[in-house]
């Protein structure tokens, strides 16, 4: 799967680029699902410098929300450290430790779903890394992590609009308004003004 093309949107909606190898003292890749292919492409672009880069690389990989597991591909790259976690939440303590131990010159590469990129980016920002040391590339599912603005509960892997809040049960439409602090889009009650009038759910975020 190649780079995702996004519709024109509002300015809080994150945008993503393509990962490019950059000179650094160490390299940290965090990826889920199809993001594995972006990581492979990254090292392919490095050409003759790839071996030296891999010797200073740490890859953390999580299967995607639809079950895509390409760990064998990233493992075959031969990075100094390559770790598979069953979920982002299982990987997060390791990610935070790596970020806390980081020295000047660490390059961070995030690839895969928006949820993975958003959650990992939040940890990177909290660790105080300069934002220009982080690159992101979207691959795979467009499913969203959405905060209900009413009850504050977060529903993971939302694929339809509207959807039902997994916490309070309200029918929510999904805005493009995005909070990096929450790593989530905003969900707002769609039938507040006319209770019970809910349009059919459309699969917008496959």
């Amino acid at each position, binding site marked *: 799967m190649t780079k995702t093309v996004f519709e024109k949107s*509002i*300015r*809080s*909606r994150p945008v993503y680029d393509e990962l490019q190898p950059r000179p650094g003292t160490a390299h940290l890749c965090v990826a889920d699902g199809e993001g594995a292919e972006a990581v492979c492409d990254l090292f392919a672009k490095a050409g003759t410098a790839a071996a030296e880069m891999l010797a200073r690389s740490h890859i953390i990989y999580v299967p995607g929300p639809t079950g895509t597991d390409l760990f064998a591909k990233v493992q075959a790259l031969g990075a100094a450290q390559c770790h598979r976690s069953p979920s982002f939440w299982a990987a997060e303590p390791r990610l935070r430790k790596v970020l806390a131990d980081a020295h000047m010159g660490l390059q961070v590469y995030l690839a895969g779903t928006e949820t993975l990129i958003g959650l990992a980016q939040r940890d990177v920002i909290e660790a105080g890394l300069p934002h220009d040391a982080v690159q992101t590339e979207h691959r795979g599912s467009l499913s969203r992590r959405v*905060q209900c*603005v*009413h009850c*504050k509960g977060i529903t993971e892997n939302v694929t339809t609009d509207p959807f039902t809040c997994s916490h309070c049960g*309200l029918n929510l439409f999904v*805005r*493009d*308004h*995005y*909070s*990096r*602090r*929450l790593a989530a889009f*905003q969900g*707002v*009650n769609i039938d*507040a*003004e*006319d*209770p019970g009038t809910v349009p059919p759910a459309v699969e917008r975020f496959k």
Partner: protein
Amino acid sequence: MGFEFNTETFRNDFTFRNSPRAIARFPFPFDRDDYMYSVNMEPHVPGRPGSVFEHAFDVDEHYLAEMRDRDLVLKEDPLRCQSLPHMEMAGWDLLELIMESKARDYPDWFELHRQGNKWHWINKPMQIEQKFTFLDSSTLPYGPMEYITRQTQGDFTLQDQRDENLWIEAGMVTTQADWSLDFDIGMGFHEWHAPVPLAHEKGVFDRALKFLLKLQHGAPVRRFNWTMTVDPLLDTSPENYPKWGPTRAEITPENVGQRMHLRVELQTLWRLPRSNAIAFPIRCYLIKFDELVTQPKWARRLHRVVRDLHPDLAAYKGFLRNRDTMVAYLSQYDDGAPTSPGWWPED
């Protein structure tokens, strides 16, 4: 000061009313017969005596009732007041600005006595007397921003300035026009304004940010914003939208004059001296259509503005579904006569 503080509510039985004095000094936001977004900022200098521009922070007949309503909102939802850890100095700056302004402008109600960092604040209308040490938050019952904004009408946000951007990183937001501090806190200038239609394309936010980055201490500026609200509900938060949203479907030709309110925000912007942050008070004024049409110029003009507003703006401001009913009501008060330029009702 020539008026009493009202005993009134902004919820349930909605006993909020404007006195004839409050109607006459209402900050009508339209200086012409049409409306489109613009940066529309002007120096926040003292204005006509008796107007909402007379003082830095206007205190009016709704003061005590608004402070009671704020307390109720915060009891229900403490997330309406948040401050990221690095914003405490900006909170002290804001506390100083408000205390100095109110003690200067309303000496019969507010007093501030200072000996070095030992401060003594007296708020007579709210019956508060507080001795505390400036810059020592352990000597106040709340953080400095929360302490002073529990005693000051209007919402407040504090913006940190870095990387050629403004970051909304603290706020007291209980009288908002449908935006969530809890969701937006931490965002950059263009991010928290992202949902606003049409204005980005017109370059309004690029110009506004450029202007605000250069805002100087001692030279505050102001602008208006506006929307429409059914019933005098201060807390039109997205958090509570399922509770107040249904009232938008209850407007009829018979009740529109009583229940539809023009909601005006007098927004001011202040550079703060120690933190270099920008304070953004958003003061909300409400007036029901029946009160507003007692001023003939405003009635004519509001009719024309509402009738001709771009549908995207009417939708964003939440009154597209009621526009026809509002226009029909207001048209009764528009005889087609020309209106004079500017806001003032009599000029």
